[in-house]
């Protein structure tokens, strides 16, 4: 591992020797210099999600946090162009003033990290590509990126995409950058598609009696013309008293029995069509009014915030796993998890957040095997302090690893940017 190298430039460094380039040119100068000197760097934004991924094998740290600010927001064109490390909260604020939003519903990882909100920057969020509850309807973060600018591992400023939704000019590098954990480019500018906020929302709560019924409901919900924009299953988990208490307090709403297992699904739109859709869905799911409860907009909105803040796992000290599988295998996974691990299910049956309360990594290994067998994958989002990285925190097969190495090589031949953050050698 190379030692810290004095960079011949005026780029600001704080007392911890972290570089703070102030613009794209300084990022380019810095990386070009590091490239010449074969000296890798960790890339950080506001450090809100730096706990996700492996520890970077690098001598330097570069913070892009000064590259922040809105460049161009065109509500009528449905896009916003921002400097890469603009805080998500700032973007959400300005969009909200025009009744628009980031439809992929950013997850607030601040709660699992430190028990309070810290959504971090858009560059960090794009680098992880973890969309919230609305994903199965509107797509992931990668589906909302229209273009970007950034600096590759040689120090070259590159761009891809633009501000228009229909664009097939050249390779779609925006997709590749999403979920690349800063290992391909240091982002400096991002253009996002934005969408109108829905007028209102309501959330319907169902109390299913068994796992087959849960997935029967999920299947009917995702097969309906009356579109929903969120569907979660929160299990009872009464055997773990701490989790049971936490869950009951997080989901404490007037119209919700949180001490038993429940499914919650969200319907958004104007008030008339919300009622129409809920009525249609009640018929399709064969639900009586006595079987369900409904959260009005004042309860519905905070409910989904709590889901997307992962508040049931607030400040968790255990391993927190994010597993995505095809929904048809979901009930089998639920059965396995029941009273083994604390968990909940999002994305209408596809996304599992699982807390693995174990010092041994065997259980993660078992879950990873299960994820692969089911046709999905898992990521250890947060590791416990005992985690020794014996089991890789990402899921990858041999062929994809080889191709990923080649792609990495094409952007960053000397492995200057976040080396080892995702896979060893990448």
């Amino acid at each position, binding site marked *: 591992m190379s030692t810290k190298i004095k960079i011949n430039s005026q780029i600001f460094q704080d007392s911890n020797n972290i570089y703070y380039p102030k613009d794209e040119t300084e990022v380019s100068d810095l990386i070009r210099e590091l490239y010449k000197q074969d000296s890798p760097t960790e890339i950080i934004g506001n450090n809100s999600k730096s706990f996700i991924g492996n520890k970077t094998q690098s001598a330097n740290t570069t913070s892009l946090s000064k590259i922040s600010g809105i460049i161009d927001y*065109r509500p009528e064109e449905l896009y916003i162009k921002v400097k890469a490390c603009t805080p998500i909260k700032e973007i959400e604020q300005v969009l909200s003033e025009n009744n628009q939003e980031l439809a992929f519903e950013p997850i607030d990882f601040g709660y699992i990290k430190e028990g309070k909100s810290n959504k971090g920057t858009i560059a960090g969020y794009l680098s992880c590509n973890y969309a919230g509850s609305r994903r199965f309807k509107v797509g992931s973060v*990668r589906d909302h990126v229209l273009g970007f600018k950034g600096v590759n591992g040689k120090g070259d400023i*590159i761009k891809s995409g633009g501000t228009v939704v229909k664009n*097939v*000019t050249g390779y779609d590098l925006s997709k590749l950058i999403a*979920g690349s954990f800063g290992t391909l480019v240091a982002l400096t500018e991002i253009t996002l598609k934005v969408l109108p906020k829905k007028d209102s929302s309501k959330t319907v709560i169902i109390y299913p009696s068994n796992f087959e019924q849960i997935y029967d409901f999920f299947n009917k919900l995702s*097969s309906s013309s009356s579109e929903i924009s969120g569907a979660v299953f929160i299990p009872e988990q009464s055997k773990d008293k701490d989790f049971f208490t936490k869950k009951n307090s997080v989901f404490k709403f007037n119209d919700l029995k949180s001490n038993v297992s429940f499914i919650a699904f969200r319907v958004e*739109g104007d008030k008339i069509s919300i009622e*129409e859709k809920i009525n249609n869905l009640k018929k399709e799911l064969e639900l009586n009014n006595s079987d369900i409860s409904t959260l009005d907009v004042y309860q519905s909105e905070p409910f989904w915030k709590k889901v997307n803040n992962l508040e049931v796992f607030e400040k968790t000290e255990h391993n927190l796993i994010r597993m995505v*599988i095809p929904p048809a295998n979901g009930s089998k996974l639920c059965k396995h998890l029941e009273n083994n691990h604390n968990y909940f299910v999002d994305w209408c049956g596809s996304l599992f957040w699982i807390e693995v309360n174990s010092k041994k990594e065997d259980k993660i290994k078992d879950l990873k095997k299960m994820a692969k067998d089911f046709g999905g994958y898992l990521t250890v989002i947060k590791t416990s302090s005992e985690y020794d990285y014996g089991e890789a925190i990402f899921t990858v097969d041999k062929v994809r690893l080889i191709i990923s190495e080649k792609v990495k090589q094409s952007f960053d031949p000397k492995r200057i940017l976040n080396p080892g953050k995702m896979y060893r050698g990448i």
Partner: protein
Amino acid sequence: MSEIALPKIDSSILNRKSEIVKKLSKLTNIENVLSEADELRPYETDALSVYTQTPLAVVLPENTEEVSEILKFCHSENIKVVPRGAGTGLSGGALPLQDAILLGLGKFNKILEIDYENKCVVTQPGVTNLGITHAVQHKGFYYAPDPSSQLACSIGGNVAENSGGVHSLKYGTTTNNILGVQMVMMDGTICRFGGKSFDQEGYDLMGLICGSEGLLGVVTEVTVKILKTPEVVRAALIGFPSIKEGGDAASEIISSGIVPAGMEIMDKALIEATDNFSKAGYPRDAELLLIVELDGTVSEVNELLKKVEAICKKNNCSSLKLSNSEKERLSFWAGRKAAFPACGAMAPDYYCMDGSIPRGKLAEALLEIKKLSEKYELPVANCFHAGDGNLHPLIMFDGNDKEQLRKTEEFGSEILKTCVRLGGVITGEHGVGIEKRELMCEMFNDNDIQQQLSIKKSLDEKNLLNPGKVYPILRKCAEEGRVHVHKNKDKFPDLPRF
């Protein structure tokens, strides 16, 4: 016009033709290898028929393993390979090369699995776009991206081009509607990206492959997402007395928070041309015609139509009709869907351009195109996917008049440069192919192009897979052709072109 720089021909490959054909015949059934002149002729061009080239041979493998063996062989022998789906592409992406094998995926024509529980279809790449919808529509599902050629274009080609369609504002293009692909790399490696679950972890290699125009790998299986058919679909047909008022109404519909399933604009020249051609009953006094389509539940659609109506009235629309039946809705679209043949009936030839612009720049773009039309003394009609900013100007000319042909090329090139100047791009949905290759430097600088070429090199080191496409060979901004249709003889005359 039909002259275009292609990669240097490797004469040693031409000399070894019979040996290569013999070897290929061992890698797949002998009847799947075509090498005689009359057998090769149908493969000489795709839907950009102004460019033709006979390939060295055509091979039509039947399964992924055969594709892998063929590519492995070509890789070791340094033989270039041009992949081809249904050949409906409008930018020359499947144009053969004299010293290359044309790898046709036409025999990959089966749907492998319909999985309603996971809301997806696993299919071979040669199945048509519409074929997927046909397979699931009896259960009330459909596949959302709807390129105008959907009757004939293959899903593998859709992946290569990241095809869109009228409904892409609301439902996205191909990249937003596929879950996984199986692909063979140039060295024969078979790989799988994604599957039936959302958002593969790690580098989004599926996202990279989608829209890569056959330069990075040959797709042999695709898993697509299927959606539930909306409960109701209705459309509004609105005339405006000026381009500005119509353009403003379209912008206001979007900024008011409505996301239409489709939103199309036609200018006066096209209103007249299509109305003459298809007797669609369009308001001929209008300077601009707007079609807005909304889908969802009954009350949702009715509510949105009310809002659209109010916005259009506020912007001084001169006529407004709402569809009250499926028949009426389709009649609104009849003229629009006949836009291309209608232009073909007005002049011996037409060029279809494909640029994207920010929605709000429509009036400016149309004005600029009008000025250029006067400058070049060539008539032009414009249609515009107003929802997503995709502009298709149709330049009418006589190809037998060399001077007109030259002027048309210049005119077209200036239009695309105007799109870039207004904040748009040179291709919204047709792809770069060979057609707009030399215009890439209007959008990208050396660093950008070098980065893309590095990716290509990392996955196809010898540059054997579809070389000469997408990236400029001579690195100069020459002015090349657009979709050229002579005497209304489109290579696929039955396909509606939007």
